[in-house]
């Protein structure tokens, strides 16, 4: 019964734009197509990285965000290249959403000199400062105070820019989270805190780790809006981001957005998924995949057709293949450069 009512309540495009979900009112078909393309690009980048890891081309570890693409892309939609982000150990999506080139990202994962960090950072420190991405972070909650500091700079320098700080549900129990949110609110800084709550801090569920039902509930303690959105619905995420970015740009201070989402893969490459059921994982993959959901919406509202989707997929496939080839054929760092950039060379 419930399903039927929802289905009937869904407006068709021709019934009036004002009843469409936010993203379909606010962005052009071209922009929505770009958003879908970025979600694919993130998905295929991570699948490509996973495959390269399995084949021994990438060492170390990585944390995949497959299943969380709507949050990365939706939050980024209202941002400009001048706005900044701090990201997390699960940060490939944020990096791509903010405009990074997958070729230089693959090169970084392959440890090559052409990578964003010249092979010094790898997956956990991927950054693209030229696009305002101050970097992923290997420390849970490590980027949150840094984002507040960047927002302090933006305010002091009167740039009108805003800063987004992504973090996971695990970080909301770090002291850095609480200290940073408090200062951002006291100083009314242009920062948006985005918690991607995928239900588990490594293996520990939020129910077992967090005293409040929602991370967004904690916003009340720091006198800022706390917004909960379906993190797998691109339009919902973009709507919350848009409101928070506007608020920040107008000097009204920070917002905490909680994107409820799910990671399809394990925490990292060592995860055996012993803390969640197969049924739970399969349900999220089959019924709540953010890319499938967005595709369906786009088709329902007549923004794209099957051929258009196929064209985007093919285009992304080409980009990923070329990027991996670029990474494979790029030069490795020179061992003589081991200690370069520990300090700034003043010469």
């Amino acid at each position, binding site marked *: 019964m419930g399903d039927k009512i929802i289905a009937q309540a869904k407006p068709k495009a021709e019934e009036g734009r004002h009843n469409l979900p936010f993203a379909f009112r606010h962005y052009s078909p071209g922009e929505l197509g770009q958003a879908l393309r970025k979600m694919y690009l993130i998905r295929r980048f991570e699948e490509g990285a996973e495959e390269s890891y399995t084949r021994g081309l990438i060492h170390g570890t990585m944390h995949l965000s497959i299943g969380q693409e709507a949050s990365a892309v939706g939050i980024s939609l209202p941002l400009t290249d001048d706005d900044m982000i701090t990201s997390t150990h699960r940060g490939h999506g944020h990096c791509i959403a903010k405009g990074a080139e997958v070729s230089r990202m693959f090169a970084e994962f392959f440890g090559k000199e052409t990578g964003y960090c*010249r092979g010094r950072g790898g997956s956990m*420190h991927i950054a693209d400062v030229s696009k305002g991405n*101050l970097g992923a972070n290997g420390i849970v909650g*490590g980027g949150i105070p840094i984002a507040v500091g*960047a927002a302090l*700079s933006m305010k002091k320098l009167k740039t009108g820019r805003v800063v987004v700080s992504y973090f996971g549900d695990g970080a909301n129990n770090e*002291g850095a989270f609480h200290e940073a949110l*408090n*200062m951002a609110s006291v100083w009314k800084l242009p920062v948006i805190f985005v918690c991607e709550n995928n239900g588990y801090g490594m293996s520990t569920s939020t129910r077992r780790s967090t005293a409040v039902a929602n991370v967004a509930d904690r916003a009340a303690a720091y006198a800022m809006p706390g917004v909960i959105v379906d993190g797998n619905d691109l339009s919902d995420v973009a709507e919350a981001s848009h409101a928070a970015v506007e608020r920040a740009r107008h000097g009204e201070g920070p917002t905490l957005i909680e994107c409820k989402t799910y990671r399809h893969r394990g925490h990292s490459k060592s995860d055996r998924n012993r803390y969640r059921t197969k049924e739970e994982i399969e349900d999220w993959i089959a019924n709540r995949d953010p890319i499938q959901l967005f595709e369906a919406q786009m088709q329902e509202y007549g923004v794209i057709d099957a051929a258009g989707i196929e064209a985007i997929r093919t285009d992304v496939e080409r980009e990923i293949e070329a990027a991996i080839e670029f990474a494979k054929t790029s030069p490795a760092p020179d061992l003589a450069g081991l200690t370069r950039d520990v300090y700034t060379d003043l010469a």
Partner: protein
Amino acid sequence: MDTTIRELSYAQAIQEAMAIAMERDERVFLMGEDIGVYGGAFQVTGDLVHRFGEDRVMDTPISELGGAGVAVGAALTGMRPIFEFQFSDFAALAMEQIVNQAAKMRYMLGGAVSVPLVMRFPAGSGTGAAAQHSQSIEAWLGHVPGLKVVQPATPHDAKGLLLAAIEDPDPVMIFEHKLLYKMKGPVPEGYYTTPIGKAEIRREGKDVTIVATAIMVHKALEAAETLASEGIAAEVIDLRTVRPMDRETIIASVKKTSRLICVYEGVKTLGVGAEVSAMIAESDAFDFLDAPIVRLGGAETPIPYNPELEKAAVPQVPDILKSARDLVNGVR
């Protein structure tokens, strides 16, 4: 350039450096706990808030980790923050941001960013503040590539090293010994810098080299005066910078004197003196040594409250005298 030299206290010299830096560069600002109208726990920021306003002399909440992170973020994005800790011991609350973020950011990002951050740490014992407010932790931070660590011993260097730190594109940690804040000394007016990474020979001598840090420089100089009256010419080197260490000055001195004492307030084991000693042992100065190297460091204990115990926990002038006499006289 104004080269008038006045007598200023160490604290006044630091305050003057911060004022000059803020006048010269709008990006420079101060952050810390109670550094505004209170004037700082040791009155180092004093009345700067009245001269520069609350936006540039920012009181933070009692949030060392978050505050340090904010300073890192501001430094990354175009500002030049000077972050004051109330006591160096509280660095323990902020180690994540100092060690994992500030120190490594440039390297991790392949040189795409710099972190021009200055942190000031009131350090050391002698104030009766006991174990959590009296430590000398410069070796903790000196162990971290990406950081620079300095310990000015005079008002002149307190100003010059701070101005050098503000100019430096990388994070510089400044340890200021609390007992030095009231010490007066000659300080030139106006802008000047004291080079980071360069030790200073405070007294020349041919019989024994004493490498000292912070307040120990003054104890070593006092000991050297007594030793001179006994016919022992001690050379006193003020290390000034823990990282990067000025190897050349120390090596040259040890080659001249053939004897080495390291005096530092931090816990002896794995401290600054351990690095100085090992560096000499690895260098060609080793062949010049006439006697084993002596380290005089803090006792293997937290700093105690009782004033006599507190004094006993760190090297004192008589300790330096005895070590120097024994070394020169061949007593082992």
